[in-house]
């Protein structure tokens, strides 16, 4: 069965005549490429620093340095901060897709893939699968650490999973923007730099770290529309069992749909042109 593609394909070989790859083939290709992405992480463990250390550093830094000042006591602040950090995980890691894509184009690896009979979406899908796994690991580390520090899940596992899921849904919609960055920039470092420039104001200009009421009016205007605020609010509602849930979840979903509707066609068109 496997040798069919290897035999000379000139006449009568229906396998080569048929340009379609099929679902089974695509799954196999995405599987092989995902394995590659994971092997790359294994070979370069430092690339996991952001996923592993960021949640820990942020938690320690904010809970102990600013927590007391901001919420009066650290326990209240934990309950505020941890859901917010969980909410932004998807976006943080989605931004890494563009960096990976960029380095594949730069190193000629993409050229090799492009001469192989695989669907062009496979390379991309495998990146998304690997980043999703990274987001899950990052979320797990964040939660484990949070529980050790005394964070309380006031609802249930289902609500927790819903919060993680919402974060991933939003992350998916950011993947397209990351892809566009990855294809537009000249180097992986540049992609990473620009990603940070986008991420930082969005993180800190949101309700993740501090209540927005104390911010000046112009900043409040920004934090109100910032999807990371909605994500943090939704996650808080889901994990703490207090505050609205439906409204912020809707806002996040609308943002995700809008971002996907605008950027997915652009990213796919650009990707097709280059592959």
């Amino acid at each position, binding site marked *: *069965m*496997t040798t069919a*593609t*290897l035999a*000379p*394909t*000139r*006449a009568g070989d*229906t*396998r*080569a*005549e*048929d*340009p379609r*790859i099929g679902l089974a*083939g695509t799954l*196999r*290709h995405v*599987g*092989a*490429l995902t*394995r*590659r992405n994971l*092997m*790359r992480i294994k*070979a*370069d463990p430092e690339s996991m620093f952001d996923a592993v250390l960021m949640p820990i550093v942020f938690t320690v830094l904010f809970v102990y340095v600013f927590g007391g000042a901001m919420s009066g006591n650290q326990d209240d602040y934990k309950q505020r901060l941890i859901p917010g950090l969980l909410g932004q995980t998807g976006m943080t890691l989605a931004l890494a897709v563009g960096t990976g894509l960029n380095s594949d184009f730069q*190193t*000629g*690896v993409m*050229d*090799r*893939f*492009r*001469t*192989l*009979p*695989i669907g062009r979406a496979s390379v991309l899908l495998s990146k998304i699968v690997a980043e999703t796994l990274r987001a899950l690991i990052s979320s797990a580390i964040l939660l484990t650490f949070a529980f050790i520090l005394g964070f309380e899940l006031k609802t249930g596992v289902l609500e927790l999973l819903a919060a993680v899921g919402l974060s991933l849904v939003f992350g998916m919609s950011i993947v397209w923007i990351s892809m566009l960055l990855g294809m537009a920039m000249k180097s992986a470092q540049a992609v990473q730099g620009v990603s940070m420039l986008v991420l930082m104001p969005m993180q800190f200009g949101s309700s993740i770290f501090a209540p927005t009421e104390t911010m000046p009016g112009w900043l409040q205007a920004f934090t109100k529309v910032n999807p990371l605020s909605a994500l943090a609010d939704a996650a808080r509602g889901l994990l703490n069992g207090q505050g609205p849930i439906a409204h912020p979840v809707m806002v996040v979903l609308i943002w995700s749909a809008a971002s996907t509707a605008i950027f997915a066609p652009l990213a796919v068109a650009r990707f097709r042109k280059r592959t």
Partner: protein
Amino acid sequence: MTGIATAPNTRGTAGNAVEVHGMVKHFGTTKALDGVDLTVREGTVLALLGPNGAGKTTLVRILSTLIKPDAGTAFVGGYDVLRQPKQLRRTIGLTGQYASVDELLSGYENLYLIGRLLDLSSRGAKARAAELLERFSLTEAAKRPAKTYSGGMRRRLDLAASMIGRPQVLYLDEPTTGLDPRTRNEVWDEVQRMVAEGSTVLLTTQYMEEAEQLANELTVIDRGKVIANGGVAELKAKVGGQILQVRPAHPAELPEMARRLHESGITGATISPDDGLLAVPITGEEQLTTVIGVLGGRGFAIAGIDTKVPSLDEVFLAITGKPTADPATAPAIALVKEPVA
């Protein structure tokens, strides 16, 4: 799609693995390809010979579906480069001019990945990876990340990667540039094995010697145009065969040696006292034997002899009457040619 008959224009001509008609490609104002026609018969090796910037890589990239031509048509394995890229990719293997291996993965993982992407079973991909690692002497380094490989090892890994699917048509863009002689021979052996197993090979090179070793046919291109085309023997005849270089034990005897050869009816010998070399153009084994016989018979002490294939530069000179446009391809050691009085 399946009902297409084998006819020119839709599938190319039967018996041709690669067929290129009027290929044109511009990069801005640079005409990388300026109307190239070329065919490679099934089961043969064609060497595409040309200096830097001739358009070799551009042509290979078009035939691999990596870039699109501005004009012209091409068929590979009967598939149209522009209209049937997916089918075409099932029939080709490419080793590009620049490495395209994943540096973070080990040699083995690189090959295994490509095997899986070519729809080999997990076991099949493992076996094929191990086989090719062995053949390219990479077994010992198989588990190391490719970034720790030397240039030659990376090149071999790249070559192995292009052979995994036993492609019907194999493109090799300067496969041996930068390799040491032993490794180069190893690569040549593998290319010949692929041909014996039924593959067709299109290889680009700057070395006449490589073309002579591997190719049935030669196409010489310069500035995007084909300037010569034919069998290896045919073109060699045009260029004038090989050059025999003799290094006498006593360089002072050089003029005397040249005169003796001239007396024996062997013409064209040149000497370069600075290098201590006598150079004699020869067209066959008999002539070689005669020259050695004459020199040996006269009792000249010979310290070394060597035959050398004309360089790309000399081929160009013979074909076009002018040297290659790019001085970078000129032979590193030029023989000072002093006509013998």
